[in-house]
């Protein structure tokens, strides 16, 4: 797997997360979201990013670790994966850092309540841990539905 070397750091609840900077198009302030009826709960709706209709996902909701309360710090990470452009709502987006492959550990089974399906690995930084998200899984709807039905049954 291709480990990221430059990552965008953002915060969900108290944890810090990172995604490969290559996948991030821009970071936007939250504007008014147009709701789309009858879609998954974690899809909050769509916003207009420079003429592109962009679906917005509440990342916390997606990772099943709660729901985002919108504040002045709330940001939308516009990410692109293949031909899909999606916005992720995060608590704050704080930093861009370099991490070396050597500092990355494989994901533990569950970290901060997030299932390891969504995680590439955990980067050990000085005094803190950074959870590296696997966007491909995060954005994959089919998989989500499977996970959901599994947890519902359990």
């Amino acid at each position, binding site marked *: 797997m291709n480990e990221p070397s430059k990552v965008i750091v953002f915060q969900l609840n108290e944890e810090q997360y990172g995604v490969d900077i290559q996948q991030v198009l821009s970071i936007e302030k939250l504007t008014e979201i147009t709701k789309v*009826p009858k*879609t998954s709960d974690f899809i909050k709706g769509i916003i207009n990013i420079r003429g592109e*209709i962009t*679906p917005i996902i509440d990342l916390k909701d997606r990772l099943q670790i709660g729901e985002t309360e919108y504040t002045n710090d709330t940001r939308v990470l516009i990410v692109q994966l293949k031909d*899909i452009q999606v916005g992720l709502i995060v608590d704050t987006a704080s930093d861009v850092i370099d991490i070396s492959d050597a500092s990355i550990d494989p994901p533990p089974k569950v970290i901060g309540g997030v299932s390891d399906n969504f995680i590439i690995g955990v980067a050990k930084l000085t005094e803190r841990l950074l959870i590296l998200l696997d966007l491909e899984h995060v954005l994959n709807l089919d998989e989500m539905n499977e996970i959901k039905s599994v947890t519902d049954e359990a």
Partner: protein
Amino acid sequence: MDTNQYIEVFLDESREHLQAINDHLLELEKESEDTTIVGEIFRSAHTLKGMAGTMGYEDISSLTHKMENVLDLIRNHQLAVATDLIDILFSCLETLEEMVESIASGGDGKKDVSQLVHQLEAIEKGEQPETSNGDQEATGTADTLENLEIDEYQKTVIDQARDQGYHAFQITVTLNEDCMLKQARVFMVFEVLEDSGEVIKTSPSVEELEEEDFNDQFSVVLLTQETLDSVKDKIMKISEIKQVEGTPLEDSHVHMPNDEKKEIHRENEPQEKQKEVKEEQKQQQSPKRQTQSKSIRVNIDRIDHLMNLFEEVVIDRGRLEELSSKIGHSELIETVEHMSRVSKDMQNMMLTMRMVPIEQVFNRFPRMIRGLSKDLDKKIELEISGAETELDRTVIDEIGDPLVHLIRNSVDHGIESPQERREKGKTEEGHLQLKAYHNGNHVYIEIEDDGAGINRDKVVEKAIKNGIVTEEEAEKLSDEEVYPLIFSSGFSTAEQVSDISGRGVGLDVVKNTIESLGGQIFTTSVPDNGSKFTIQLPLTLSILSAMLVNVERETYAIPLSFIEETVMLKPEEKMSVNGQAVMDFRGKVVPLVSIQEVFEVPGTEETEQNGNQDEAIVVVKKGDKLTGLIVDHFMGQKEVVLKSLGNYFKDVFAISGATILGDGSISLIIDPNALIK
């Protein structure tokens, strides 16, 4: 050579030429005497051969090469146009199409063409096409001592050259028998020839010369200002040349028959003094290219991208308009107004850029009908009108298959066999009409046949059998309600499953495709008089007139094409039937659907209490079914740009897309199809 960058041009042009060959073949079948048509086919085949050769698709060029030979014979009245012959040419065409498509989908365009090549060679030699099994050789090595045959076009070139003081010579060069590198010698001879004039014809053909596919002798027709002797001398200076003979070319040669000849075009080596001759030549060869030069090919993605960028301009325009009216500076307002007008014109231009004539789809049908009528032993005449009607490119791409399906259906089930038709007192030949026209914001495509019509009883019987309707329901249905049943899924009226239609896929696919394009299909039919399918399509998919409505804090757009009327409904006019809210709309009971409930729009306290106010209803129609959509407010009509919700959402219920409003916010576009019951 890296040819990748040319592939698209090659594909586009190949398709164009194949289409031209197709059209002309069909014409030729009707008017077998017309040699100008053969000329057209020849020209297309020739261009195709050249292009394929350059791109390295040898199978295409070898097949077109043989086609040319045969066409040449027809053109010179040495071969009569027979159905067999046309059939073979059509199968060549099909093979060529397959090869081109294979290239388009990333293949290598290779295909075994030897069978067809054999057949063509057999025809060339005057055998019956069926009994063919000719061998590869013998075509290139015709007796070159004979006078070369000059066709009309070359004659014109020669005549014109003469007027300008050129002489036309036929020169026959014989190489030494032990010559080692014939090809190199030939090349040297050509260099000399082209230095002194222009070669307009060779025998054997240039290709064969290049492949050393000739004996020791070849002939050329040369246009030059020099004398015959000086040219001869120059050629003799090349080593390993045994003999050079030359004769001035007389007019009398023009119609002399000969079995092998080729034109060559050397347009890429302009020589000053022959320029005029060449220009003449070019004009003659490709009158089409002249007109084409005024248009360029643009990738549709680029237009889409331009459109996207432009939409941003439109949004900013909206903001500017707001700002300028707020500031109230008169010069500013003037400028902004002017900009709005200009940008509206630009918007229209951009939309027309996406429009293409429906001809692209229609022109594959004549051949299809020809094939079908052969397979089914029916006589069918296809009449096409309105092929120039323009439609959005996206619609064009999608509408082909449904039309094929409907036409096959009409031919297979609609039009009867000649015998049956005679018994019914109709002409033996069935008529199929394909018509396209604009009307308002829509384009209509009609497929009308004069066949047996739809058998109501059979349809009903089948529908009951397949559980689409119950017997009681069926009895109450009017004819107009019965016919659409053939478009229900799992329905097929053909008693026998045939190759042509009725493979169980059914017409429901047709209906689905058309509806997904925002269109509708209507059916009318008179027993023994024929049936008519009318497809209504939106003019363009990317822009539509819509009514904006408010539900709580959300704004929705409802396409105007669906809207029958808007009504303000008093609370007491709202009724309930079996728990379903309904209203009385001109004597009709129309079910009501609340957008707020369907889309689960969260309400605010304020609106939840006022149950006593008039309700705003948008009455939408689908076919003859009406439904009232309850909204909060009407906001007015607007041209909106339809944007897809993207791949991330799959099939959102009752939403066909979204649009960006003037203030940059997004409004969803409602698809009333899903809400009408």
